[in-house]
């Protein structure tokens, strides 16, 4: 069986002269949840828009389930469902009509039972006769998801699915995504939150400035990049780090009022208990402490340093 999505040598230069993608190669495996992780402007939306047919590529080849997206666009596009980053629905249509419209548009025979189940799964059934204009932002987003799933796609794209989304919808969406994956649907989502990629994806592709920097199993990536930071807000600012603390790689921040300890989250002993003990012995008090995972920016810095 051909892979569900195969992208090779895809470049995109917008008319403005901007080069959004500089030769992207990517294989997505059937049935996986794949996260495209990258900062704003990395080219995530451009890449999936090319696959879905809403942006034309400058050069390259894309195969969806073995079908070329240009030469065999019907077969390729019938396989794909897209939930774009921005909400865009005819605001005068009703929920039911707009979802039925999408199914028809993608060439599928009407199936009211399927659409009913879909709307129930997305908590939209009560709203089926409401006009889109009467719905809240979260509900509109649910409708966008229903439209994308209306024709039972094998490959679903979710572009920044949780941007500006409330907790309920986020939870429902992840439940739905897992349910779809269990049914064999392949899901490609884009995000700039590393936590989201870690939580959802089987594999992660890191993209920046129009290039894929690496593709890795989520667990392996987290292990590689799982740096964490302990931040201590000191009671009294200090000018230099005492020599007694030389065993730990520490940094002073915020004019000496914060002490920063970077450690490997996956290492056996993190050294935190010993550090805190030593601070106590030295009489260094702190008001507050906080740990954080290395940010996407840190990951890029370490990736760029390595390559």
């Amino acid at each position: 069986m051909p892979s569900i999505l195969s992208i090779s040598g895809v470049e995109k230069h917008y008319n403005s002269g901007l080069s959004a993608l500089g030769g992207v190669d990517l294989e997505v495996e059937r049935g996986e949840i794949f996260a495209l992780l990258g900062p704003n402007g990395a080219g995530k939306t451009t890449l999936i828009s090319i696959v879905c047919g809403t942006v034309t590529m400058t050069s390259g080849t894309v195969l969806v389930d073995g079908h070329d997206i240009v030469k065999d666009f019907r077969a390729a596009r019938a396989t794909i469902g897209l939930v774009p980053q921005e909400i865009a629905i005819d605001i005068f249509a009703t929920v039911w009509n707009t979802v039925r419209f999408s199914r028809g548009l993608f060439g599928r025979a009407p199936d009211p039972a399927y659409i009913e189940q879909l709307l129930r799964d997305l908590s939209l059934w009560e709203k089926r006769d409401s006009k889109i204009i009467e719905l809240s932002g979260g509900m509109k987003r649910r409708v966008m998801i229903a439209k994308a799933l209306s024709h039972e796609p094998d490959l679903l794209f979710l572009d920044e699915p949780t941007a500006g989304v409330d907790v309920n919808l986020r939870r429902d969406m992840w439940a739905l995504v897992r349910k779809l994956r269990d049914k064999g649907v392949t899901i490609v989502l884009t995000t700039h939150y590393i936590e989201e990629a870690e939580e959802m994806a089987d594999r992660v592709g890191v993209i920046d400035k129009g290039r894929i920097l690496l593709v890795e199993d989520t667990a392996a990536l987290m292990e590689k990049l799982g740096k964490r930071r302990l931040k201590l807000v000191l009671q009294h600012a200090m000018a230099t780090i005492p020599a007694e603390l030389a065993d730990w790689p520490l940094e002073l921040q915020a004019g000496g009022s914060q002490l920063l300890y970077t450690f490997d989250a996956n290492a056996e002993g993190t050294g935190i208990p010993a550090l805190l003990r030593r601070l106590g012995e030295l009489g260094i008090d702190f008001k507050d402490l906080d740990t954080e995972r290395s940010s996407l920016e840190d990951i890029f810095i370490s990736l760029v340093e390595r390559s």
Partner: protein
Amino acid sequence: MLRINRSGIWAIYRTEMQRTLRTVWQSIATPVITTALYFIVFGGAIGSRMQQVGGVDYGAFIVPGLMMLTILTQSISNASIGIYFPKFTGTIFEILSAPLSAFEAVLAYVGAAATKSVAIGLIILLTATFFVKVEILHPFWMVAFLLITSIAFSLFGFIIGIWAKNFEQLAMVPSLVVTPLTFLGGAFYSIDMLPEPWRTVSLFNPVVYLVSGFRWSFYGVGDVSVAASLGFMTGFMALCLALLWWMFRTGYRLKP
């Protein structure tokens, strides 16, 4: 795999027609009232002084021109809004991502706009029969002209809808080009009544050919030959189709 996405064409066509039906009374009342007004002003006031044009009662003489005038403006505005609006609101992404060829999308949008134009044309004709006695000598050609004009100008409107970057541009072509050409196109007079050089100048106005051919199908008289009318219409339609084909092929103002 599916050769023609019939259900996709039908989905768009049906949605476009529903959009029209949401304002069905407005859609019917406007042409009825406008037609009645034209008959009162042109038919009543001018017609009482100018009994006949080319052997036809003035009231009856203006019916084909009036129909053409409305069909032209309605086709252009319906088709241009039909595609401009999804472009403006962003909902066009769904059409672009669907397994639908350019031809199928055009068929659905232009088909819906043309259907509405034909319906409005027939409503005007019906309204006119309450005011004057209308004869149709060549019913087949009458229907043919009605259909071709509706389709050709819906195609033209569709092109304007794709081309327009804002609402000003959307309104510009209809108001600055089409309306003047229509009024000077012999809808309310025969161009034979004009002095030279205006008569010759008029022959460069495309609308003259439409109105003349259409009027011929009613009364058997026209300003130019039927062949010229038909030739012009076909040429215009072919030009629109070629332009559209190019627009879709290059993604012109539809896809970045």
